[in-house]
Structure formats: structure tokens, C-alpha cells
């Protein structure tokens, strides 16, 4: 990990100022991602994964706002750049794939319109050249007879095809960083497999860094290099994907892994994490996971600090599941 990171997020905070109070959707998260690497961002619904993605692209809608921290893209703080600079970066340097392929393409515009505009918003090229590149991009994601498909409307595609088109659009300008927000959740398993394979191939070929947001641990296990587990707006555990999944130290990560159906014995009831994710408007005092945690004790009434664990892992817990507890050290910063 001597390579300079493509994206370095430090203590990012994105809050939503609602009538019911301030919802800390993202509350001080830190991670970084190197070129060509895949970072899996995992968590339950409402844990702040998607808001993290939108924060990176500067797309947080009212009443939300990035209130603190740094998002360093190649050393440039995206929180401080002008709106116009941010627009230039979006789609060229950083692009995003959304969760629901049925909703991401404008229903009344043809595919070619939506692809060509993405190229011509950033480069002065003729329509013919842009169309050429759009066609190549469609071919790249495995869409047959791309020439014909360019002239079609989104409703003439299936969900899987639309997601391929969305991925093709995200890849059009050869970005350094792609934020993929649960791009395969709405698809069936076979399509999901194909898309995962293609995205992985493309990223390793082009050196694109990929942030893969999902709640599916099996997807992360096969795809990611690094993993960040989010709970209630915080990253509770992060590290190399195999290390974290094989030896989870945070009780929440542990709970997630034991909830995966394949890990359970046939016929036995599925194990689950008791309780439900807390409302962001009404977080428990101290560790947000404590009320659901079977290892919690009186220490958990206070907010834990980020601690370093072996193998470059980070952890937000007072009572980690101990494998070799002696090596823990308190992070100083």
C-alpha cells in the first residue's frame, strides 16, 4: 500500500437537518482507497452507505449537508471545490452507479442521447465520435448489437440490460473512481454474477478504484480488497476483506456474518442480530450498537474511540471479540 490513494476520506460528516432533529447519517467516517482496488462498504439499510456515496459526488440533497471532514480526491478536497469544478469531476473522474436500474435512465430520452450527452458535457467532440465511443462502451459491458440498442428507449431494455447501460455510462469517460451503490441488488442472481465479473475485469484493466456499496456479504467476499462495515453512520470495523470476514472483531460484523444463511445448519433457525437498527434521530447514548450487543457492558455507555488492530484493521468497540487482544493499541490522533 505504498501507492497514493485515489480517494482519502477523513472524518466525513453528513447531517440531515429535519424538522424532527438532526439526523447524523454519516458521522465521522474515515477510509481510503488505492487505484485498482475495490472497497466494499457494508451495512444495513439506513446505516449511511448511500449517503456516503452521494457525499463523495457532492450530490446530497436538501435538507442534508456535508458538515465536516475532508474528501481528498488525488489531494483535492471535494468539500471545498467550486460547484463548476465538482461538475467537471463528476462523470469524468468520479462516476456513480445507482441502485435501481429501472429508475436511473430518463424514460423519455433515447440511450444514445443519454450517453452522448455524458461525453459531450466534458469534451468538445463531434456527435459521431461520441456515438462511436458510446457504442464501444455498450459492447464493452456485453450488450449485443450496440448500434441498434443505442437507438432504443430505456423501457425497451430489461433491468439487467439497463444496469449494464448505466455501468457503460459510468465507464464512458474512464473514471479513476466509481461509486457503485448496490448496483446488483435489484437484479437476479445470474445477472448479478455476470455484472460482478465484468465490473471486476474492467477495474483491474483500467486501474479504476471502486467503492462497492452493498448489504450482501457474499458479494463483498468475492469482489472487494478492503471492507468497511457501517452501523448508524459510523464505520465500526474496517480492514482487509479476508481478515475481517474470517476473524470479525466487532460484534456487529460478527452478527452480520453469522446471519448469512449458508453459514447456518440446514433446518436450524437462522441466527440473527436481535433488535433493529436505531433511528438516526434517536441514537442510544455511547455505542449505538450496545443495546443489541451481547458483549456490551457499562463501558459501552460511552462512545468508543477508533482503535488500531493488527493487519491494519480499525475497530470501533470497547469489547472486541478477542483473538489476540494484547496487540491492541489506542489510536492517538
Amino acid at each position: 500500500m505504498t501507492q497514493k490513494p485515489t480517494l482519502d476520506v477523513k472524518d466525513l460528516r453528513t447531517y440531515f437537518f429535519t424538522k424532527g432533529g438532526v439526523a447524523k447519517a454519516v458521522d465521522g467516517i474515515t477510509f481510503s482507497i488505492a487505484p485498482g482496488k475495490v472497497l466494499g462498504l457494508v451495512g444495513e439499510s439506513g446505516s449511511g452507505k448511500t449517503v456516503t456515496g452521494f457525499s463523495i459526488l457532492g450530490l446530497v440533497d436538501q435538507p442534508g449537508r456535508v458538515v465536516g471532514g475532508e474528501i481528498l480526491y488525488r489531494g483535492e478536497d471535494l468539500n471545498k471545490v467550486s460547484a463548476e469544478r465538482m461538475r467537471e469531476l463528476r462523470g469524468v473522474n468520479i462516476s456513480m452507479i445507482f441502485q435501481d436500474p429501472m429508475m436511473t435512465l430518463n424514460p423519455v430520452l433515447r440511450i444514445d442521447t443519454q450517453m452522448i450527452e455524458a461525453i459531450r458535457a466534458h469534451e468538445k467532440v463531434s456527435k459521431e465520435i461520441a456515438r462511436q465511443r458510446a457504442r464501444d462502451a455498450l459492447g464493452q459491458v456485453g450488450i449485443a448489437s450496440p448500434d441498434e440498442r443505442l437507438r432504443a428507449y430505456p423501457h425497451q431494455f430489461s433491468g439487467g440490460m439497463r444496469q449494464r447501460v448505466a455501468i457503460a455510462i459510468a465507464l464512458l469517460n474512464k473514471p479513476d473512481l466509481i461509486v457503485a451503490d448496490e448496483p446488483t441488488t435489484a437484479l437476479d442472481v445470474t445477472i448479478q454474477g455476470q455484472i460482478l465479473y465484468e465490473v471486476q475485469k474492467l477495474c483491474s484493466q483500467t486501474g479504476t478504484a471502486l467503492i462497492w456499496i452493498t448489504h450482501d456479504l457474499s458479494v463483498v467476499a468475492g469482489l472487494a480488497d478492503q471492507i468497511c462495515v457501517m452501523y448508524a453512520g459510523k464505520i465500526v470495523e474496517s480492514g482487509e476483506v479476508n481478515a475481517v470476514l474470517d476473524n470479525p472483531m466487532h460484534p456487529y460484523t460478527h452478527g452480520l456474518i453469522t446471519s448469512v444463511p449458508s453459514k447456518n445448519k440446514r433446518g436450524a433457525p437462522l441466527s440473527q442480530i436481535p433488535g433493529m437498527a436505531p433511528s438516526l434521530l434517536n441514537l442510544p447514548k455511547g455505542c449505538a450498537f450496545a443495546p443489541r450487543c451481547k458483549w456490551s457492558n457499562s463501558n459501552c455507555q460511552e462512545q468508543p474511540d477508533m482503535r488500531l488492530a493488527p493487519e491494519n484493521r480499525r475497530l470501533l468497540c470497547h469489547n472486541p471479540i478477542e483473538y489476540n487482544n494484547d496487540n491492541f493499541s489506542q489510536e492517538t490522533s
Partner: protein
Amino acid sequence: MSVFIIRRLLQSGVVVIIMSFIVFSGVFLIGDPVEILVSDDADQEEREEMIKSMGLDKPFLVQYGIFVSKALKGNLGESFVFNEPALLLILDRMPATMELAVVSLMIAIIFGIPLGVWAGLKPESWASKSIMTGSILGFSLPTFWVGIMMILFFAVMLGWLPSTGRGDVQVILGMPISIFSWDGFSHVLMPAVNLALFKLSMVIRLARAGTREVLHQDYIKFAKAKGLQESRIILVHVMKNILIPVVTVLGLEFGGLVAFSVVTETVFAWPGMGKLLIDSIGLLDRPIIVAYLMIIVFLFVFINLVVDILYSILDPRVRLQDVKS
């Protein structure tokens, strides 16, 4: 698509036939034209002759039969008052009404869509709030009162615009049009604005509601994520989506604009079909009333068809086809 159009035309034929019967019998109920048309000092014989010449001596159904058989040949009867074919009289007045309606529609679109989109983009700004308040006024103030106030203000007090008539008329493509000369334009401006006010308010509200809805769609966020210019997002991605309801409603309302320009035409003495209708109702000139209503029926049927076709152009998801085929 052609199957769709043929089927629609057949359905339209049924609508026209049913409407003709309703219209014809409806007009029968509103009074006896003889009382108005025959002079008081006519004797019984003259009176009988008059009734006979107008065909009013025959039973109702026979009169309707005669009307239909003539109508199929393109003759909607002769005016009792002018002794001219009713159809010609109306068609003669039609360009004036059409011009008024088209200019009103243009005003409603050209001002309504930008104002509505603006109000949708910045719902909290005071400008948007005043636009919306204004549109409530446009909805609720009665047309005739606004017309009279406009005359009072712009024609009487300020003397900027003429209050009645059509002004200079130029013949373009065989139709008299007044909008292309300053004098004609100054005549058409006030009645057109008066007539447009209601539609304008409606377009503003539709465009605002559409914009508010479309802005929160994923595809707008995706368009932003592609790094598109704000202007392109609004003018292409938002606009094309909100045009669908606007076109539908405006298309249907255009028929209403033509049919019910009666009030505006009366206030501004605009020589169109609406004014002719009001005069004819006053004189119980049945053939003109019937012919007018039949023309309006045709107009609505035709506009509905055009709207369906336009709709399919704007929204690719709509394909014109028969449910059964």
C-alpha cells in the same frame, strides 16, 4: 398505429351521431323562434307560410331526419336570420376565434412553462410564492370581470390599447389574420391575455407540480452524477418529462378555448364565432346554434386524436395500439 387511427375515427363517428341528436333536441327545448322572427303585425297566413318555409311545421323526428340527411351532404341548415348557410356563416367567423385561441394558447405556454418550472425549482423563494399566488387569482377571477377591468385600465385610463374590434387584417394563406400588423396585434393582445389567464394559471401549476416531482427522480440525480450542466438537466431531462401532462391538458383545453371564448369575444366585441353564437341564441336562430355545436363536437374529437398522437411522440412508452389486437 393506422389501425388505431381507423378505430378511433369510427368511435368518433358514433360520438358525432349521438351528439347531433342531443344538440338537435336540446335546441328544440329552448323556445320558439317563430315568436321572435315573425313580425307582430303579420297575419295568420303569413305566419303559417313562414313556419312552413323554415320547416318547423313537421314533427320533431322528421325535422331531425331532414337535418341529418342534409348534414351528410355538408349542409347544416340555413340561418333563419341571415338566410345564408349556417356553416358558411360560422366558418367565416372561425379564423378570428382561432386566432384569438392560438394567441392565448401561445401566451399560456410561453409564460406558463418557464414560470411553472421556476416555481418548481425554487419553491421557497418569494418570487415562486408570488407566482403561485398569482395563479390562484388567474383561476378564480371571472373572465368577464378581468376583461372589463383591463379595458378600463389599458384602454380607458391609459389609452394604450384599443378596446374593441379586430383592427387591420391581412390575408395570409387565404385566412384573414390580424397579428402580423401592429394595429391588429394591439387589438388582439388584450382579449388574448384575458382568455389566456385561466390556461396560464393551469400551465404554471402543472409545470410546477411536474418539476417538483421529476426533480426527485433517480434519473435526475444520475444526470447530475454524469456531470451534465444544470441548464441541460433542466431544459432536456426535466422539461421533456413535464411536457407530457402539459401537452395532454392543453390539447384538451384548446377545444374549450375555442368553444368558450364566447365571454371574451362578447366583452371585447371580437368578431368571432362565440359572438355569433351569443347573437344567435338571442334571436333563437336554431340552425346556427346547431351548426356551431356540431363544429365544436368535431373540433373536440379531432383534438383528442391529435393529443393522442402527440403524446406518443413525447412519451416513447406510449405506443398507439389497440388493446384487443
